[in-house]
Protein backbone atom coordinates (compact mmCIF):
# COMPACT_ATOMS: atom_id res chain seq x y z
CA UNK A 1 0.00 0.00 0.00
CA UNK A 2 1.22 3.48 -0.71
CA UNK A 3 2.41 5.65 2.14
CA UNK A 4 -0.24 8.37 2.11
CA UNK A 5 0.17 9.35 5.77
CA UNK A 6 3.38 11.16 6.55
CA UNK A 7 4.85 11.34 10.03
CA UNK A 8 3.39 14.19 12.13
CA UNK A 9 5.36 17.36 11.56
CA UNK A 10 7.97 18.26 14.11
CA UNK A 11 6.99 21.22 16.31
CA UNK A 12 8.17 24.66 15.24
CA UNK A 13 10.29 25.11 18.38
CA UNK A 14 12.17 21.93 17.58
CA UNK A 15 12.95 23.04 14.04
CA UNK A 16 14.13 26.42 15.36
CA UNK A 17 16.29 24.65 17.97
CA UNK A 18 17.83 22.40 15.30
CA UNK A 19 18.62 25.39 13.07
CA UNK A 20 20.16 27.43 15.91
CA UNK A 21 22.17 24.39 16.99
CA UNK A 22 23.53 23.86 13.48
CA UNK A 23 24.61 27.50 13.20
CA UNK A 24 26.23 27.43 16.65
CA UNK A 25 28.02 24.18 15.77
CA UNK A 26 29.62 25.93 12.80
CA UNK A 27 30.55 28.90 15.02
CA UNK A 28 32.05 26.50 17.59
CA UNK A 29 34.09 24.76 14.90
CA UNK A 30 35.36 28.15 13.69
CA UNK A 31 36.35 29.15 17.24
CA UNK A 32 38.15 25.84 17.76
CA UNK A 33 39.92 25.71 14.40
CA UNK A 34 40.81 29.39 13.94
CA UNK A 35 40.28 31.55 17.04
CA UNK A 36 41.78 29.31 19.73
CA UNK A 37 45.52 29.86 20.27
CA UNK A 38 47.85 26.85 19.97
CA UNK A 39 48.75 25.09 23.19
CA UNK A 40 52.23 25.40 24.71
CA UNK A 41 52.63 21.60 24.74
CA UNK A 42 50.23 20.22 22.14
CA UNK A 43 50.51 23.04 19.62
CA UNK A 44 47.76 22.97 17.01
CA UNK A 45 46.58 19.56 18.18
CA UNK A 46 44.76 21.33 21.03
CA UNK A 47 42.01 22.01 18.45
CA UNK A 48 41.09 18.33 18.75
CA UNK A 49 40.41 18.75 22.46
CA UNK A 50 37.34 20.95 21.90
CA UNK A 51 35.62 18.22 19.87
CA UNK A 52 36.51 15.37 22.24
CA UNK A 53 35.97 16.95 25.66
CA UNK A 54 32.60 18.55 24.83
CA UNK A 55 31.28 15.21 23.57
CA UNK A 56 32.56 13.41 26.68
CA UNK A 57 30.93 15.91 29.06
CA UNK A 58 27.58 15.62 27.32
CA UNK A 59 27.85 11.82 27.42
CA UNK A 60 28.11 12.02 31.22
CA UNK A 61 25.06 14.30 31.38
CA UNK A 62 23.04 11.92 29.17
CA UNK A 63 23.90 8.96 31.41
CA UNK A 64 22.85 10.89 34.53
CA UNK A 65 19.54 11.96 32.96
CA UNK A 66 18.88 8.35 31.88
CA UNK A 67 19.33 7.18 35.45
CA UNK A 68 17.13 10.03 36.76
CA UNK A 69 14.24 9.02 34.47
CA UNK A 70 14.86 5.37 35.34
CA UNK A 71 14.50 6.28 39.00
CA UNK A 72 11.31 8.22 38.26
CA UNK A 73 9.91 5.17 36.48
CA UNK A 74 10.68 3.01 39.50
CA UNK A 75 8.91 5.50 41.76
CA UNK A 76 5.86 6.37 39.64
CA UNK A 77 5.57 3.51 37.12
CA UNK A 78 4.64 5.98 34.40
CA UNK A 79 5.43 4.71 30.88
CA UNK A 80 6.48 8.14 29.66
CA UNK A 81 9.37 8.17 32.16
CA UNK A 82 10.60 4.89 30.68
CA UNK A 83 10.27 6.34 27.15
CA UNK A 84 12.32 9.37 28.22
CA UNK A 85 14.92 7.12 29.88
CA UNK A 86 15.28 5.06 26.68
CA UNK A 87 15.59 8.22 24.57
CA UNK A 88 18.37 9.49 26.83
CA UNK A 89 20.07 6.09 26.92
CA UNK A 90 20.12 5.93 23.14
CA UNK A 91 21.66 9.40 22.89
CA UNK A 92 24.04 8.48 25.75
CA UNK A 93 25.30 5.41 23.89
CA UNK A 94 25.76 7.55 20.79
CA UNK A 95 27.84 10.10 22.71
CA UNK A 96 29.75 7.34 24.54
CA UNK A 97 30.74 5.76 21.23
CA UNK A 98 31.73 9.16 19.90
CA UNK A 99 33.76 9.84 23.06
CA UNK A 100 35.69 6.60 22.58
CA UNK A 101 36.34 7.14 18.88
CA UNK A 102 37.28 10.82 19.21
CA UNK A 103 39.43 9.98 22.25
CA UNK A 104 41.38 7.41 20.27
CA UNK A 105 41.82 9.87 17.40
CA UNK A 106 43.03 12.56 19.83
CA UNK A 107 45.30 10.13 21.65
CA UNK A 108 47.32 8.90 18.67
CA UNK A 109 49.09 12.15 17.68
CA UNK A 110 49.40 13.46 21.25
CA UNK A 111 50.20 10.30 23.28
CA UNK A 112 51.43 8.05 20.44
CA UNK A 113 48.85 5.34 21.02
CA UNK A 114 45.21 4.80 20.13
CA UNK A 115 44.38 2.87 23.26
CA UNK A 116 45.73 1.67 26.56
CA UNK A 117 43.95 -0.26 29.29
CA UNK A 118 44.39 2.32 32.02
CA UNK A 119 41.72 3.23 34.57
CA UNK A 120 40.12 6.17 32.74
CA UNK A 121 39.88 4.51 29.35
CA UNK A 122 38.80 1.15 30.76
CA UNK A 123 36.02 2.78 32.79
CA UNK A 124 34.81 4.61 29.68
CA UNK A 125 34.80 1.36 27.72
CA UNK A 126 32.93 -0.27 30.61
CA UNK A 127 30.36 2.54 30.55
CA UNK A 128 29.81 1.95 26.82
CA UNK A 129 29.49 -1.81 27.40
CA UNK A 130 26.95 -1.24 30.20
CA UNK A 131 24.91 1.01 27.92
CA UNK A 132 24.93 -1.74 25.29
CA UNK A 133 23.79 -4.09 28.08
CA UNK A 134 20.93 -1.69 28.83
CA UNK A 135 19.51 -2.28 25.35
CA UNK A 136 20.28 -6.01 25.40
CA UNK A 137 18.26 -6.31 28.62
CA UNK A 138 15.38 -4.36 27.10
CA UNK A 139 15.39 -6.67 24.09
CA UNK A 140 15.13 -9.74 26.28
CA UNK A 141 12.04 -8.72 28.32
CA UNK A 142 8.58 -8.51 26.77
CA UNK A 143 6.59 -7.15 29.70
CA UNK A 144 6.87 -3.32 29.51
CA UNK A 145 6.74 -2.75 33.27
CA UNK A 146 9.37 -5.35 34.08
CA UNK A 147 11.47 -4.17 31.14
CA UNK A 148 11.36 -0.60 32.42
CA UNK A 149 12.25 -1.62 35.97
CA UNK A 150 15.20 -3.84 35.06
CA UNK A 151 16.64 -1.35 32.59
CA UNK A 152 16.20 1.44 35.17
CA UNK A 153 18.42 -0.52 37.56
CA UNK A 154 21.00 -1.00 34.79
CA UNK A 155 20.95 2.74 34.08
CA UNK A 156 21.64 3.48 37.73
CA UNK A 157 24.60 1.07 37.69
CA UNK A 158 25.98 2.98 34.67
CA UNK A 159 25.48 6.28 36.50
CA UNK A 160 27.22 4.89 39.60
CA UNK A 161 30.37 4.35 37.52
CA UNK A 162 30.53 8.03 36.50
CA UNK A 163 32.24 9.47 39.61
CA UNK A 164 34.99 6.85 39.32
CA UNK A 165 35.35 7.64 35.61
CA UNK A 166 35.45 11.39 36.26
CA UNK A 167 38.09 11.13 38.98
CA UNK A 168 40.08 8.21 37.53
CA UNK A 169 42.70 10.51 35.99
CA UNK A 170 43.35 12.06 39.40
CA UNK A 171 43.20 8.86 41.43
CA UNK A 172 45.25 6.54 39.25
CA UNK A 173 48.38 6.68 37.13
CA UNK A 174 46.89 7.01 33.69
CA UNK A 175 47.90 8.17 30.24
CA UNK A 176 44.78 10.35 30.13
CA UNK A 177 45.52 13.97 31.12
CA UNK A 178 44.29 15.11 34.53
CA UNK A 179 41.31 17.42 34.74
CA UNK A 180 42.02 20.94 33.51
CA UNK A 181 38.52 22.13 34.39
CA UNK A 182 37.37 20.85 37.77
CA UNK A 183 35.47 22.05 40.82
CA UNK A 184 38.82 22.64 42.51
CA UNK A 185 39.97 25.11 39.87
CA UNK A 186 40.44 25.92 36.20
CA UNK A 187 43.87 25.51 34.61
CA UNK A 188 43.08 26.65 31.07
CA UNK A 189 43.91 29.93 29.34
CA UNK A 190 40.84 32.25 29.21
CA UNK A 191 40.46 32.11 25.40
CA UNK A 192 40.75 28.34 25.39
CA UNK A 193 38.29 28.08 28.27
CA UNK A 194 35.78 30.22 26.38
CA UNK A 195 36.13 28.06 23.23
CA UNK A 196 35.80 24.89 25.31
CA UNK A 197 32.72 26.08 27.18
CA UNK A 198 31.15 27.33 23.94
CA UNK A 199 31.67 23.95 22.25
CA UNK A 200 30.40 22.12 25.32
CA UNK A 201 27.28 24.30 25.20
CA UNK A 202 26.80 23.46 21.52
CA UNK A 203 27.20 19.74 22.28
CA UNK A 204 24.56 20.15 25.01
CA UNK A 205 22.21 21.77 22.49
CA UNK A 206 22.83 18.90 20.06
CA UNK A 207 22.00 16.50 22.89
CA UNK A 208 18.76 18.39 23.62
CA UNK A 209 17.82 18.37 19.93
CA UNK A 210 18.42 14.64 19.61
CA UNK A 211 16.71 13.71 22.88
CA UNK A 212 13.60 15.79 22.28
CA UNK A 213 13.17 14.22 18.83
CA UNK A 214 13.85 10.74 20.20
CA UNK A 215 11.25 11.26 22.96
CA UNK A 216 8.71 12.34 20.33
CA UNK A 217 9.45 9.16 18.36
CA UNK A 218 9.07 7.11 21.54
CA UNK A 219 5.64 8.64 22.16
CA UNK A 220 4.57 7.90 18.57
CA UNK A 221 5.72 4.30 18.93
CA UNK A 222 3.92 3.95 22.26
CA UNK A 223 0.69 5.32 20.74
CA UNK A 224 0.98 2.92 17.82
CA UNK A 225 1.62 0.00 20.14
CA UNK A 226 -1.43 0.90 22.29
CA UNK A 227 -3.58 1.28 19.17
CA UNK A 228 -2.52 -2.17 18.00
CA UNK A 229 -3.25 -3.69 21.41
CA UNK A 230 -6.71 -2.08 21.48
CA UNK A 231 -7.53 -3.58 18.10
CA UNK A 232 -6.30 -7.01 19.04
CA UNK A 233 -8.27 -7.06 22.31
CA UNK A 234 -11.49 -5.41 21.03
CA UNK A 235 -14.60 -7.06 19.44
CA UNK A 236 -14.10 -8.19 15.85
CA UNK A 237 -10.42 -7.70 16.35
CA UNK A 238 -9.41 -10.64 14.21
CA UNK A 239 -10.96 -9.07 11.11
CA UNK A 240 -9.19 -5.78 11.80
CA UNK A 241 -5.86 -7.50 12.34
CA UNK A 242 -6.21 -9.44 9.11
CA UNK A 243 -6.68 -6.18 7.21
Amino acid at each position, binding site marked *: *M*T*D*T*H*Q*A*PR*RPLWWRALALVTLVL*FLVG*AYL*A*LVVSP*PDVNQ*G*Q*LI*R*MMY*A*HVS*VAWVCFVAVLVTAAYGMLFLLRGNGIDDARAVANAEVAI*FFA*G*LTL*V*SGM*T*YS*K*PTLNTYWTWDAKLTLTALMFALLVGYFVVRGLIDDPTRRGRVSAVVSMIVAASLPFNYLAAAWFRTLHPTLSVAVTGVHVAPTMLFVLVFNAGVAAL*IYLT*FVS*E*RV*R*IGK*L*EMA*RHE*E*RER*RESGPGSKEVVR*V
Partner: protein
Amino acid sequence: MRSASAARAAPAPRRSFVSDLAQHWRWVGLIWLEVSVAYAAYSLYLAARARRAGRREEDR
Protein backbone atom coordinates in the same frame (compact mmCIF):
# COMPACT_ATOMS: atom_id res chain seq x y z
CA MET B 1 84.07 22.71 13.57
CA ARG B 2 81.05 24.87 14.37
CA SER B 3 81.45 27.18 17.29
CA ALA B 4 78.99 27.33 20.13
CA SER B 5 78.04 30.89 19.21
CA ALA B 6 77.19 29.80 15.67
CA ALA B 7 74.92 27.11 17.06
CA ARG B 8 73.13 29.66 19.21
CA ALA B 9 72.88 32.05 16.31
CA ALA B 10 70.80 29.67 14.28
CA PRO B 11 67.36 29.91 15.76
CA ALA B 12 64.64 27.50 14.81
CA PRO B 13 62.64 28.79 11.85
CA ARG B 14 59.49 30.54 13.01
CA ARG B 15 56.48 28.54 11.86
CA SER B 16 53.42 30.30 10.57
CA PHE B 17 49.92 29.46 11.73
CA VAL B 18 49.11 27.87 8.38
CA SER B 19 52.22 25.71 8.11
CA ASP B 20 51.90 24.65 11.73
CA LEU B 21 48.27 23.69 11.31
CA ALA B 22 48.99 22.00 7.99
CA GLN B 23 51.39 19.63 9.75
CA HIS B 24 48.56 18.35 11.92
CA TRP B 25 45.59 18.95 9.61
CA ARG B 26 44.99 15.25 9.17
CA TRP B 27 44.34 14.67 12.85
CA VAL B 28 42.53 17.92 13.57
CA GLY B 29 40.43 17.50 10.44
CA LEU B 30 39.77 13.83 11.16
CA ILE B 31 38.32 14.39 14.64
CA TRP B 32 36.05 17.23 13.50
CA LEU B 33 35.00 15.14 10.50
CA GLU B 34 34.22 12.19 12.79
CA VAL B 35 32.03 14.32 15.02
CA SER B 36 30.23 16.01 12.11
CA VAL B 37 29.57 12.74 10.29
CA ALA B 38 28.33 11.10 13.49
CA TYR B 39 25.86 13.96 14.14
CA ALA B 40 24.64 13.84 10.54
CA ALA B 41 24.27 10.05 10.59
CA TYR B 42 22.30 10.06 13.84
CA SER B 43 20.06 12.86 12.53
CA LEU B 44 19.28 10.76 9.44
CA TYR B 45 18.57 7.72 11.60
CA LEU B 46 16.15 9.75 13.75
CA ALA B 47 14.42 11.15 10.66
CA ALA B 48 13.95 7.66 9.19
CA ARG B 49 12.67 6.30 12.49
CA ALA B 50 10.25 9.22 12.90
CA ARG B 51 8.83 8.55 9.44
CA ARG B 52 8.35 4.89 10.28
CA ALA B 53 6.80 5.61 13.68
CA GLY B 54 4.47 8.24 12.25
CA ARG B 55 2.87 6.02 9.65
CA ARG B 56 -0.54 4.83 10.62
CA GLU B 57 -1.08 1.14 11.19
CA GLU B 58 -3.24 0.62 8.09
CA ASP B 59 -0.52 2.04 5.85
CA ARG B 60 1.96 -0.61 6.91
